Every structure is written in structure tokens, then in C-alpha cells.
């Protein structure tokens, strides 16, 4: 196969590397303005660099493309490879929400409208990825803006969510009042108050550490 371009990427190495790295990890299209700030070049230069990069990928027959969409640049799969991506979506994606994702879903359902940061603070972890997936799947959506200083985006559940769960309205969500703590909660509480010794041999004594996990 002849190489279509002897030197496919005339973009300066450092700038190209920075652009490729940032665009690779970005979750949304990145504004050229912001890219310019990161690279310390003018936005117009960013546009040039991105156009050259995109042309390079196309010439090399890559499976991904760098496109300008929604006011910014992002990587996406090349249209020619769509059949593979479709098969991947159908065959490769896990068809169930993980426990963590379900918890996030539940928090939004019961506490809406709620900001991403509020969900994160309840879960104690970053929830950006999960929230994005839930939004992509149409279960949650932006419903309002926090009137406070940050003007944070507030999320709520969608009609599709209600349909999937067979609910008529949010009022049909099971009431929390009748919730009884599970055994693990009671156990945890008990442990924190009672520390009596067990007469059994509990933990294995500390022999020489095992080599293998």
C-alpha cells in the first residue's frame, strides 16, 4: 500500500502532541479558544492546526476523524467504519447499569432537580462519566439552572425514564419513608458500638506474607 503522504503531519510536533492529547481525553467538543489558551497560540492557529491534523488522519485512512462540531473539535469514529462500531454497540456493550450507575440514577430520580456536583457529593466520587452515559441514553436530562452564583446545570429524569420503569409519574416512585435499613447497615452500626472480643480464632495470624495475591 503506497503511503499517500511522505510526511503526513507538517504540524509542529509539540503542538500536535498537545492537541491530540487534549482532544483524546475531552468528553465534549473543545472550543478552539480554549485550545488556543492551552497551547498559547491564537485560535486561528488552532483552526489551522486542527484542519491539518484532520486532513492527515483522512489521508492515512484512519478509523477516527477529527471533526468540528457544536462549536468545537472532537474525535469521533470514521463514517466508513460505522458497521464495526454498530456491531460493537450491539454485541459489546454491557446491557445493564452497574451498581454505581444505578445509585446515581436513583439519586437523580429522587432528588431532582440536582446538579452534577451534588450527586458527586452524595456518592463521594466523580460522577461525570455515569451522568453523561445516563444522559446519552436519554434517562436524564438538563432541566434547569441553579439560580445561585455558579448557575450549575440541574438534572432530572425524562419521560423515557418513567416509561422504562413503567411509572406514570414521579409520584409513583416508591416512598422512602417505609424504607427499613438492610442488615449490612445494622451490622455496621453495631460494630461501631460494640467491640467485644470473639472467642473464636478470627483472622489468620500473620505468617510470612504470601507471595501471590
Amino acid at each position, binding site marked *: 500500500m503506497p503511503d499517500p503522504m511522505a510526511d503526513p503531519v507538517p504540524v509542529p510536533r509539540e503542538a500536535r502532541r498537545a492537541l491530540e492529547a487534549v482532544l*483524546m*481525553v*475531552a*468528553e465534549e467538543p473543545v472550543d478552539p479558544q480554549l485550545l488556543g489558551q492551552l497551547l498559547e497560540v491564537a485560535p486561528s492557529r488552532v483552526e489551522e492546526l486542527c484542519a491539518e491534523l484532520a486532513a492527515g488522519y483522512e489521508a492515512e485512512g484512519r478509523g477516527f476523524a477529527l471533526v468540528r462540531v457544536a462549536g468545537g473539535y*472532537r*474525535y*469521533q469514529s470514521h463514517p466508513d467504519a460505522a458497521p464495526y462500531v*454498530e456491531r460493537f*454497540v450491539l454485541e459489546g*456493550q454491557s*446491557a*445493564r*447499569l452497574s*451498581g454505581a450507575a*444505578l*445509585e*446515581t*440514577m*436513583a*439519586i437523580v*430520580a*429522587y432528588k431532582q432537580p440536582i446538579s452534577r456536583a451534588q450527586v458527586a457529593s452524595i*456518592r463521594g466520587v466523580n460522577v461525570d*462519566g455515569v451522568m*453523561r*452515559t445516563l444522559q*446519552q*441514553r436519554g*434517562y436524564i436530562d438538563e432541566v434547569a439552572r441553579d439560580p445561585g452564583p455558579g448557575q450549575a446545570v440541574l438534572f432530572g429524569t425524562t419521560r423515557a*425514564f418513567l416509561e*422504562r*420503569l*413503567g*411509572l406514570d409519574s414521579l409520584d409513583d*416512585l*416508591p416512598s*422512602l419513608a417505609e*424504607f427499613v*435499613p*438492610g442488615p449490612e447497615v445494622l451490622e*455496621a*452500626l*453495631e*460494630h*461501631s*458500638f*460494640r*467491640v*467485644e*472480643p*470473639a*472467642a*473464636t*480464632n*478470627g*483472622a489468620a*495470624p*500473620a505468617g*510470612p*506474607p504470601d507471595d501471590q495475591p
Partner: protein
Amino acid sequence: MAYDVQTAVFEGPFDLLLHLILREQVELYDVSLTAIVDAYLGEVERMEGVDLEVATEFVLIAATLVELKSRRLLPGDEGVDLDDELALWEERDMLLARLLEAKTFSDAARALAALADDAGRSYPRVAGLEERFAALAPDLLEGVTPADLRAALARATTPRPVPRVDVEHLAPIRASVTDAVAELVDELPRVGRIGFRSLTAALVERLEVVVRFLAILELAKQGVVDLEQADTFGDIEVIWRGEGAAHDRPLLVDLTASVDVYDG
């Protein structure tokens, strides 16, 4: 006594002991155990809130050290029970093994930290599917019921129980101080409830006090006495519960289980 333990944050008794022995090159038997206890209590005070597990673990180890040390101070071999002697060796070996294990994992943790630092310089691509494929994706809520959702919320919002210092249960410690135990079992049923200070007022030697203390801890572990201490450094109340008491209640699995490690 020049230990400076003000600089590092210690993660518990093993950490502190390792520090004292390895980094400070302290000869434990040539120094006062009080100094070690003080150093430790200083650490505990700097922690946000005292953790009962931490405190208990340290008392346990301190008791073993006291016993090791007292054994070395006893003249000659006469009167030393061979079983006790073996038990002591076992405890010493156990303590050594645990310290070695603690050190192994603290070094392993450092290696993992280095790996995590390296890996942390790269960020994964997580952008996911483009909109045009979203319709193909399977329904993630398939099989999820409203009740599942409520249970998930409950899981997510259950507060972590805050560890509480409960001095009443301080002390599930065993020490091979058989004679003192026998005396106490004879004495305590008559008085029912007595302060530790009164209980040891007649004793002259500090060593005797220490041994009595260990004996009481042993009784507490067996559940025949209860201990109460109203405030830090306050007098410890010893309450006789009776020898049958230990069997009247369900045993709870001890969180650390480490106590059992020291059983002879």
C-alpha cells in the same frame, strides 16, 4: 528520652513501633515504656477523634511489651512456668511477624503509589458513543424495578457510622498472669464494684500494679468483669459480673480479630 514523633503521621501501633525501632534505632528495653505510651498518645491526640480500635490495639501491644520486659527483669528461672514461657515466645514471634508484615505492606504500598503516579500522567478516553449510535445501544434499565431504584438510593445515602470511643469495653486483652487472676476472682465477687486505684492501693511495687492491670484486662475479655472509665486518666471502675456471665450473651465477631492472635 529524645524521640521526635511530631513530624510524621502514624497510622497505628505497628507504624509507630516500626518507626521507634527502625528509624530511631531505639533500644526498647533500655527506655521507659511510658515514653512510648506518651509518644503514642500524642499521636492519637493529633488524630481527628480517637479510634477505639487504634487505642485497643496499642494497649494490646503495650501489654505484650510490658510482659516481655517484666520477664526480663525477673531474676533467674525459678518459678517460671514452662507453658507461660512458651506462650511468651509465641507472643513475641507473633508481634515480630506482624511488624514484618506491616512493613512489607507499607513498602508495597509505596510501590503501588509509584505505579499510580506513572499511570496518572495519562488520561483515558471516555467520550463514548457518538449520538448517531445511541439509538442502537441496549436499554440499560432493562429489568430494573422501582424498588431496585429505592434500594440503590438507600445504599447511596446511608451514612457511614462514625466510630465512637466507648471506654466501657476497653480491654479485651489476655495476659498470662494466672496468680493475679486467681486473686481477683476470689476478691471481686465479694466487693462487686471497685475502683482500680483502691484495688491496687495495697500494692507496693509498680510491677504488681501492672500485673494486676493485665489480670483485670484478662477478666474483662472473658466477660466476667466490666470496666468503666468516666474520663481519660480517670479511675477505672471494675464491676464483677460473675463467671456465668460470659456464656449468657451472644458472641460478636470482633472487628480486628487481632486480639485472638495473642491467645496462648
